[in-house]
């Protein structure tokens, strides 16, 4: 497709291959957990047995908020965030902005109100102290945290995943550059050829078909990782002399004439009803700035309208409850930059059109995991004739490729067992670590690589098969109860695990032995 000189093609092959080998296993972990995290919300509903379908924003909340405000110190009325937690409970966070070690943080009081309107919990502290995993969303939080920062502390985890995003970008672009006959080869999967060509075809066909998305996900992923850690401080330094608060206010704030006179906030129930009617759906998040002042502003965020990518955002005058205007998610008025930032999240998360877009993104994530693994296999198979000392790398690839999903399933099993006891926050990641250690021990001790791989696939199959009956046995809602409550996600995921586990069990039945063929000599571009 793109004709580079032989020398440059060799260089691009080296860049593509070595970036893949050095960072590929970590990248695979990020892509695999990202694939699972596409359905993080659904996994949260299924694992915790959440059957409520009425949004917290569709229930009366005005008097509860006023009551909480009266009991919260006024210094935390700078901002109030409203969002859903757990099984459609309402999270209310009264807070103020502060700086800690040069980093912007928030400090305040966080309340959780259950579906019956009762105060379920109250916590004080900074956002980092308060917003960790809770018992009923520990599995969902674990999945997302692994993907976003590989459980490393900020900023190192985000920097690492950002670098992995750039590595994926390099792999996508270099892959495009080195493949001379990208479109001619797009349907060719040789089966009865030597292993190098077979793996090469598998890798390039899957890679070509998923190339646009590999590029988009690498680009948006590295944007998210570097945005807060590196980007914002540098842009704030260049444009505002280092004042990150001023940058955030310019990008996200609603500038207007300051009026600090006390004024009670407008009726929040009426505002929620109006916002729901205008946007065609309940809010996903509500922010109240300058609570209790005459210049208070209320911003309500909604899922995108059908066909759109960007979330819908409505602005209300806080003191009167009067609708002011539809505003873009970023900036006070529609702009190219605001739209560009606004579409980064939908393009990365695939959550702009409900289950349909999520299903496509999930399948594409799976395709990218396949591309990573076939790339590894290709690199190893090419060198099989040269060095036996790469057996350890072959085993490492198997350990991560199949062992990682086994460990994730183990954490799901542990979550289901531990959640009713209230110990899920500890046992979910602990089970992951224990399962990972067991997989690594198996890799070290089992003599036969094929037997080791088969054992891992079987463990994955068994894990998937026991998840649904375990969930039911430990008090999770049955299919009839879930469907009656209008929550088909629960039986749908049960069926998905049973189907996947059954298929994997069938796939791991012993196959006939194969003979290896002599390796062909490949051209440098291959």
């Amino acid at each position, binding site marked *: 497709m793109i004709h580079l000189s032989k020398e440059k093609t060799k260089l691009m092959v080296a860049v593509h291959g070595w970036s893949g080998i050095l960072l590929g296993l970590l990248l695979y972990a990020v892509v695999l957990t990202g694939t699972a995290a596409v359905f993080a919300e659904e996994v949260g509903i299924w694992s915790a047995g959440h059957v409520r379908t009425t949004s917290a924003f569709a229930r009366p909340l005005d008097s509860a908020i006023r009551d909480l405000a009266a009991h919260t110190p006024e210094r935390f009325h700078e901002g109030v965030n409203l969002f859903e937690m757990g099984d459609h409970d309402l999270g209310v966070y009264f807070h103020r902005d502060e700086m800690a070690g040069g980093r912007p943080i928030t400090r305040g009081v966080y309340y959780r109100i259950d579906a019956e309107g009762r105060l379920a919990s109250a916590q004080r502290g900074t956002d980092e102290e308060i917003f960790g995993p809770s018992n009923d969303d520990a599995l969902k939080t674990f999945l997302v945290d692994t993907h976003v920062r590989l459980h490393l502390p900020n900023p190192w985890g985000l920097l690492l995943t950002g670098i992995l995003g750039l590595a994926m970008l390099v792999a996508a672009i270099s892959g495009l*550059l080195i493949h001379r006959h990208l479109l001619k080869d797009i349907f060719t999967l040789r089966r009865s050829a030597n292993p190098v060509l077979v793996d090469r075809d598998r890798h390039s066909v899957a890679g070509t078909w998923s190339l646009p998305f590999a590029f988009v996900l690498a680009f948006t992923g590295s*944007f998210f990782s570097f945005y807060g850690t590196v*980007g914002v401080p540098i842009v704030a330094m260049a444009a505002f002399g280092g004042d990150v608060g001023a940058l955030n206010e310019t990008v996200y704030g609603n500038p207007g004439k300051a009026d600090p006179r006390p004024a009670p906030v407008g009726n929040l129930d009426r505002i929620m009803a109006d916002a729901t009617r205008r946007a065609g759906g309940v809010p996903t998040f509500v922010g109240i700035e300058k609570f209790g002042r005459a210049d208070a502003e209320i911003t309500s965020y909604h899922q995108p309208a059908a066909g759109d990518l960007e979330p819908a955002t409505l602005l209300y005058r806080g003191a009167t409850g009067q609708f002011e205007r539809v505003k873009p998610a970023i900036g006070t008025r529609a702009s190219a*930059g605001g739209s560009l930032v606004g579409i980064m999240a939908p393009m990365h998360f695939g959550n702009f059109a409900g289950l349909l877009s999520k299903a496509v993104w999930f399948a594409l994530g799976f395709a990218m995991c396949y591309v990573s693994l076939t790339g590894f296999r290709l690199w190893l198979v090419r060198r099989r004739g040269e060095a036996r000392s790469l057996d350890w790398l072959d085993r490492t690839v198997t350990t991560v490729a199949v062992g990682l999903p086994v460990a994730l399933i183990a954490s799901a099993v542990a979550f289901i067992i531990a959640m009713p006891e209230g110990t899920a926050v500890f046992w979910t990641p602990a089970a992951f670590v224990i399962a990972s250690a067991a997989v690594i021990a198996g890799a070290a001790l089992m003599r036969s690589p094929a037997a080791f791989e088969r054992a891992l696939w079987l463990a994955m199959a068994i894990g998937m098969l026991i998840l649904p009956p375990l969930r039911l046995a430990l008090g999770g809602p049955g299919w009839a109860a879930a469907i009656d409550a209008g929550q088909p996600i629960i039986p749908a995921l049960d069926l998905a695990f049973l189907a996947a586990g059954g298929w994997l069990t069938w796939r791991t039945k012993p196959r006939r032995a194969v003979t290896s063929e002599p390796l062909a000599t490949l051209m440098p571009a291959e």
Partner: protein
Amino acid sequence: MSGSQGRWARILLAGPGAVLVALVVMAGMTRWVPPGPAGIDNLVVPLVLVPLIWAALFFHACLDRSIARVAIVAFGLLALHGGLVAQAFLRPSMEQAR
């Protein structure tokens, strides 16, 4: 420049060089990208584009036949955008001095 010197120069320009230049270009872009109707384009567009800027610098360093040209482009961008940022810092001090 000998073969291995040229290779090291290319590695430096494609590696730490591309990172440094991309970050300085991002900072400098805040000074010349038009702010747009919401007054934020000059702040958010560089933030969004920086991975692509880095990738362009990386592949340019890898693929351009002439290492001298790679160095000229990299240093030119660094000087131009670094200068824009420095000017922004100097301007308030100059106004204070007056």
